[in-house]
């Protein structure tokens, strides 16, 4: 049977992708950030997941305002790298896991979560920057990826509590898939940042630190945090952090925190990263 072995959370700042793609990762501004992912890359080489279920948000790339799905699951065999206005990132095409994705879609919809099924979608930095941070710059990504796009651009996004429950439904679906697969679930976006208006540049390290702590030890309480607190404390784009709760909801109550990293700034954003391993 398929099983979820671990969860990963990381920010997905576009400038990180640009720094890597333009060979600037060794510069003083960027080096400390990439150092925080050295452990993670070695860890991934040892773990060798078959599939990553990757929770992210689209940034006005695949979804215009014509259609804004709250939850969209990518069921295609491959996903092209989007041109976000400066040409597609020079990274490998993303190979999907259509059989598992279809299985998850059917199971999760029957568990009362209304997923939108996507059979063609270009993926933007929200998905590719986490892949680069965790796997480096290979000629091909080392595993299949199921893109799972969450609306956090058009308010209101789904609540934290709903995201946590959705994670549990995704886990149930994966547990019932009849192939022996090592699956990781990733939650991306955040941490505190605001990209708009006179309050742009907001960073809240104490709040971010508490979020990381509670994500590990007390996700049920954390999931009850109302949206307004994210907006006030972590900035208007900090609301992306609800996506981390989907990841956490798919893990066991008991997890081992095997890595944590926090860094300010990457352009306008606080970068947070954590790896959680399922414990029995």
């Amino acid at each position, binding site marked *: 049977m398929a099983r979820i072995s671990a969860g990963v959370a990381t920010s997905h700042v576009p400038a990180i992708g640009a720094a890597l793609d333009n060979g600037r990762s060794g510069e003083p501004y960027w080096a400390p950030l990439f150092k925080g992912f050295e452990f993670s890359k070695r860890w991934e080489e040892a773990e060798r997941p078959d599939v990553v279920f990757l929770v992210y948000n689209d940034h*006005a790339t695949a979804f215009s*305002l014509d259609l804004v799905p709250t939850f969209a699951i990518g069921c295609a065999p491959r996903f092209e790298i989007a041109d*976000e206005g400066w040409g597609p990132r020079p990274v490998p095409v993303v190979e999907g896991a259509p059989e598992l994705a279809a299985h998850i879609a059917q199971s999760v919809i029957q568990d009362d979560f209304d997923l939108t099924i996507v059979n063609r979608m270009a993926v933007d930095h929200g998905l590719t920057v986490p892949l680069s941070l965790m796997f480096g710059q290979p000629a091909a990504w080392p595993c299949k990826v199921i893109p799972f796009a969450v609306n956090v651009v058009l308010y209101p996004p789904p609540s934290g509590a709903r995201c946590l429950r959705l994670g549990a439904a995704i886990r149930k679906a994966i547990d019932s898939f009849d192939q022996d697969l090592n699956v990781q679930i990733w939650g991306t976006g955040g941490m505190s940042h*605001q*990209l708009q208006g*006179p309050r742009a*540049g907001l960073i809240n390290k104490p709040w971010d630190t508490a979020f990381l702590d509670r994500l590990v030890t007390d996700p049920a309480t954390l999931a009850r945090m109302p949206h307004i607190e994210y907006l006030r404390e972590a900035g*208007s784009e900090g609301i992306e952090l609800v996506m981390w709760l989907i990841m956490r909801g798919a893990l066991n109550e008991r997890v081992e925190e095997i890595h944590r990293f926090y860094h*300010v700034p990457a*352009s306008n954003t606080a970068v947070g990263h954590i790896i959680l391993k399922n414990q029995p």
Partner: protein
Amino acid sequence: MALDKPYMDIPGTTVFDADMCRRGYALNQFCMSLMQAANRQRFKSDERIYLDEWPMSEAQKQAVLARDYNRMIALGGNIYFLAKIFATDGKSFQHAAALMTGMSQADYAEMMLKGGRSPEGQRHTGRGHGQD
């Protein structure tokens, strides 16, 4: 009954909710069109003519021409869509963020290097100092 929108009192912040989405639909879809190189070229060659192809308000068009991002946001623009405009101009997110805060890009970058803007005094309008 009006919906409760507690986020209306966050200083210097416009939450892109369903109502703003309705107002900004044409503006944001114009921005989406700039993801195609041919459209970027047409926009650059005559911005006004290109804008007139979209059912946007005159105020929205003027805000685009002036690159007044705060005004675009007030008129229903969303930052991820507006990013297509400054990308077309060859400008970064940090450039746009600095513009919106009224800081020079150098001062803004320095603020970020020092840990970013503190949330102190930035949580509610009409309370404390440092209000926008």
